[in-house]
């Protein structure tokens, strides 16, 4: 098997048996990045020198027989996760030259296992988008069809894994930003339960919805990387003390008797026929494995996109008020006569159009006269969405839906903000309810573009959805981009 197609368990064996060295493994990916990333544009920053230093250190640990699960494993990191000493831009001009003076908790955890960081991947600016076309530095393309978007906002991480420019990657998911690009790029991505992974050092978009997760070529690899980043962190006030199990422990258990619900609203008008048929065919495969399929309903889905955007933008408007051009980030070069002018000019030059729109929307729905009609209503809807999920989970173990209404599309289709928002319909309720969900490829459309399905689990039931995704993957032959 070629190095680029290896899964983590095989990589671990090859490293521990000295079949390959950590340096050779890093080199194989860095060479592929040099060869292909000029076209794919999945990375904003490639950390070649650091990767070789880390590979050398990892090799010393491997040689001592003290390797952990990820020692010497190359990993790509989404560029909204703070990496000490390595530029972290959030794909925004406002953070173009920002070098974090500290590591995010997830980076401390990964570095404690001596991973090899390949670089920082592109994304929609401040994770606001579903196409990676709002990135100020690298408008990533889809490795399956370079005329299509990779999805977003973790489009760089998804494309890097799909094109085998990294074996695994970290992404973040506020409204589907791991699952939708995983679907578009034909890979697997998991958004864990809200609070599972510390958000300390993650550049904030919407704090009650943001969650760091993992992206890989398989559910098992997502689980292995997830094992390394979960756990309580005193630096994140929302961090959970829930015990962290081995997320791969249930892989291989059969699906007999597992109850899978299919909410009818997720298969209704607005979902492409090929997507619907592919996900329903996957449901039938689960039935053939012994699972029980249950039809259910989620009436609040009709309001989910509006609810999500009101909550997310309100939080974003508040979170992004910290960018003033003074403490860090872009500062206008123009002569300013006042403190106010410095702030307004720095922000106006630094933020892109989509970020500005979301700040305006957030401040609109928080303004006097609009707060009750919009923001408070969205808070009420969040409670309704949670209740509907609780009701469904009384009768089932997990929920199966399409990950996105369509396969990847051309960048021209991203011009209309409203249609882009509406395209998030399949993913946002998971964030609203704080649940875990995994997307894996379940088929390809007539043009060979990947179709993703999502398995949504109960709170802290990542093991169950990883098991189910993996069970499907065992009988599915993925067609990866030829590179």
């Amino acid at each position: 098997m070629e190095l680029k197609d290896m899964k983590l368990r095989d990589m671990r064996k090859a490293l521990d048996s000295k079949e390959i060295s950590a340096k050779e493994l890093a080199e194989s990916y860095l060479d592929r990045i040099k060869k292909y990333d000029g076209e794919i544009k999945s990375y904003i920053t490639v950390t070649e020198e650091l990767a070789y230093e880390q590979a050398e250190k990892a090799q010393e640990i491997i040689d001592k027989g003290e390797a952990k699960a990820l020692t010497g494993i190359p990993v790509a990191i989404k560029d909204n996760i703070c990496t000490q000493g390595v530029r972290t831009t959030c794909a925004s001009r406002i953070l173009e030259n920002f070098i974090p003076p500290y590591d995010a908790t997830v980076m401390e955890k990964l570095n404690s296992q001596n991973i090899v960081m390949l670089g920082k991947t592109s994304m929609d600016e401040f994770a606001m988008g579903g196409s990676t076309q709002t990135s100020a530095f690298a408008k990533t393309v889809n490795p399956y069809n370079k005329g299509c978007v990779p999805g977003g906002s973790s489009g760089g991480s998804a494309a890097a894994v799909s094109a085998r420019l990294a074996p695994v990657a970290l992404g973040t998911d506020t409204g589907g930003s791991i699952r939708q690009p995983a679907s578009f790029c034909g890979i697997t991505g998991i958004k864990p339960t809200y609070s599972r992974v510390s958000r300390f050092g993650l550049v904030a978009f919407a704090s009650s919805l943001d969650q760091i997760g993992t992206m890989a070529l398989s559910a098992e690899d997502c689980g292995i990387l997830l094992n390394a980043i979960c756990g309580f962190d005193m630096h994140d006030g929302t961090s959970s003390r829930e015990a962290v199990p081995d997320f791969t422990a249930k892989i291989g258990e059969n699906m007999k008797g597992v109850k899978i619900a299919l909410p009818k609203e997720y298969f209704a008008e607005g979902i492409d026929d090929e997507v619907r048929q592919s996900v329903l065919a996957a449901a039938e495969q689960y039935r053939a494995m012994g699972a029980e399929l249950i039809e259910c309903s989620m009436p609040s889905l009709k309001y989910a996109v509006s609810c999500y955007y009101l909550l997310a933008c309100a939080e974003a408007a508040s979170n992004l008020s910290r960018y003033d051009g003074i403490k860090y980030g872009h500062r206008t070069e123009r002569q300013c006569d006042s403190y106010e002018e410095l702030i307004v000019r720095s922000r106006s030059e630094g933020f892109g159009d989509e970020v500005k729109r979301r700040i305006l929307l957030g401040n609109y729905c928080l303004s006097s006269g609009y707060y009750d009609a919009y923001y408070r209503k969205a808070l009420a809807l969040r409670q309704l969405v949670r209740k509907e999920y609780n009701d469904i989970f009384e009768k089932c173990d997990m929920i199966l839906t399409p990950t996105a209404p369509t396969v990847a599309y051309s960048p021209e289709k991203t011009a209309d903000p409203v249609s882009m928002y509406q395209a998030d319909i399949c993913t946002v309720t998971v964030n609203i309810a704080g649940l875990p969900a995994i997307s894996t490829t379940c088929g390809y459309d007539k043009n060979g573009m990947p179709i993703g399905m999502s398995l949504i689990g109960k709170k802290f039931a990542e093991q169950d959805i990883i098991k189910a995704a993996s069970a499907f993957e065992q009988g599915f032959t993925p067609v990866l981009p030829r590179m």
Partner: protein
Amino acid sequence: MDMEMVKYLADLSKLEFSDEKLGETAQQMTSIIELMDTVKEIDVTYDAYKDNHDVFLPELRTDSVIPSMETAKIVSNAKSSDNCFVVPKVVE
């Protein structure tokens, strides 16, 4: 959403738009607000107790002085002088 509202929101948001961009933004924001208006169709009431009851509060830390990030690191991404942030003169 009219231009006056966009100007008001821009002011609240500490942003400025050119006249051309203001018109385009007003148009886009009108469509976005139309989408947001769907929340008005449903009669639901927010129960603040439910959310706050659910919030997980980790144990509070001991209130003690511990080493924090050094000033040089804090100002490392800013225009600074003598370990202080530099801003335009605000007091005559």
